[in-house]
């Protein structure tokens, strides 16, 4: 079974996010694999291991030929990676990204496409299902368990009140929640081997995508302004010296709950 895992390479999530003058996410620093994508890589690796054949291919779109995050996924055990990197992609929105990823994934004809439910930096949360629509694939979003037997995917999909059990034949796309599996830590061999694994870098022209459909020009919305949210000031902070509960009770009584 061949699995494509979509990997987003993002700025360090521990650093506060910032926007460029053009109101796009600032990605000038070194990029790293989105932690949310490690779950997808792990699910892909487990499914290929269970199937006994096939491979996991990582697909990513990033500026400046950035491959740091892809190497992290390769170190976990993915066989190879495909990066789409092109200056004309600067300012591309979620749908434009989906077009690029769909074109890159379509060349690979995988049995299964896996992505995270949303990225940690932009959290638009629409790109994977846009990819599914563009590729004509059925999708199971927000899967918290994924199994494949006999070419049929069975999963548990989150709902507002619990979860549904769902089924669909492959090929298909799933988005997996954090916690679906425990992502493996790359071992030393994985890390040293990652730099030797095949990594293909493609341009927009390689994918035969019309440059006007992507980039800032292809984005059908204009950002007018970005402002700090109305500040919500902190209030009283006390150190518990054994009687803090009394202050909480007083506070609650003041609210007349």
């Amino acid at each position, binding site marked *: 079974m061949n699995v494509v895992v979509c990997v987003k390479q993002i700025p360090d999530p521990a650093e506060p996010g910032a926007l460029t003058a053009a109101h796009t996410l600032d990605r000038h620093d070194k990029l790293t694999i989105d932690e949310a994508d490690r779950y997808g890589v792990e699910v892909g690796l487990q499914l290929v291991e269970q199937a006994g054949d096939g491979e996991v291919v990582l697909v990513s779109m990033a500026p400046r030929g950035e491959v740091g995050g892809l190497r992290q996924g390769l170190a976990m055990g993915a066989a190879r990676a495909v990066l789409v990197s092109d200056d004309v992609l600067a300012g591309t929105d979620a749908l434009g990204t989906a077009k690029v990823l769909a074109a890159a994934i379509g060349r690979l004809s995988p049995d299964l496409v896996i992505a995270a439910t949303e990225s940690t930096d932009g959290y638009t949360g629409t790109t994977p299902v846009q990819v599914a629509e563009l590729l004509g694939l*059925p999708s199971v979003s927000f899967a918290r368990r994924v199994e494949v037997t006999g070419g049929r995917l069975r999963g548990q999909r989150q709902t507002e009140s619990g979860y549904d059990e769902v089924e669909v034949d492959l090929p298909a796309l799933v988005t997996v929640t954090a916690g679906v599996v425990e992502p493996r830590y790359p071992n030393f061999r994985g890390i040293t081997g990652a730099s030797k694994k095949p990594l293909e870098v493609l341009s927009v022209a390689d994918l035969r995508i019309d440059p006007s459909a992507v980039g800032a020009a292809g984005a059908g919305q204009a950002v007018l302004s970005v402002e700090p949210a109305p500040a919500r000031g902190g209030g009283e902070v006390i150190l518990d010296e054994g009687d803090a509960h009394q202050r909480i009770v007083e506070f609650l009584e003041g609210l007349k709950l």
Partner: protein
Amino acid sequence: MSVVVVERVGDEITPASLELLSGARHLGGVVEGVTWGDANVLAAQAGAYGASVLWSVGDLGGGLPGPVMAAGLATLLAKDGAAGAESGHVAAGEGGGATRVLVPHDYDGRDIAARLSARLDRPVLTNVVGLDADGVSEHAIFGGAQVLKARFTGPGIFVVRAKSFIAEASDGAPAEVRPLAVGDLGRIAEVKITACHVEEQAGPRLDQAPVVVSGGRGLGTAEGYEMIEELARLLGGAAGASRAIVDAGWVPYSHQVGQTGKTVKPSLYFAAGISGATQHMVGMKGSSHIVAVNKDPDAPIFAIADLGVVGDVHKVLPKLIEALKNR
């Protein structure tokens, strides 16, 4: 005009869709809803909250709403542009701005918006927390720390976070029910639901409770969550959780408050052992009052808490529970 995705649970429209119908009504212009299944049982409720017409894509046949609803919406929007006038449909541009599609920010809503976006070749804006009649939308970014304002160039698809609008019924007549034909969608609509599981929780619903008590990693173990449930019971509230302990498997996902979980705006939000990751804060910072207990004095949650207690939840909470029991 506004087209609202009307999600349902049985014979009831979900609170999130009622909010969007109300919000659309206040934005002005014609409001129409699109749902699935038997729309007749929803017509009175849809009309009261603002819809003049309620379209239905028909029975889902055990499938997920996403592909079918997206295809139905795409058909409806095409009608709106091309044959709008003769079908009695209102042309785009009426009521200020182009046609807007309002979609609840939940699991099915995101599927619908994503597929519709790809189908129409139109972008989608998510995490919308406000929208005006001129088509300018507000978005919470960086976990709600900043507000971004954007405008679509053309018809817009807006995925709106819960509680961005207030659900209010009017004296509107029942919506006119119309079928919305969706042809054979082939493979994209092949996913079938084989079983539904409801993870019941006692007490009021998390997103409707006047009080929410949430626990996080600071509880130390899954057993620590029992204190959260007890405190919620004593305060007549619901028990919530941070993503960290949901991912760790301590509590079901249905308890999660935050970006990927529920958005709550209770009168009182009590955060115990929660540091306040932006992921969490975006789901609860609209609460009227916030109390936080955390042992780390630098926890970001203290920056928005009305009352912050720097201390060990295992010491503070048992005493608080005892004091509330004796009250």
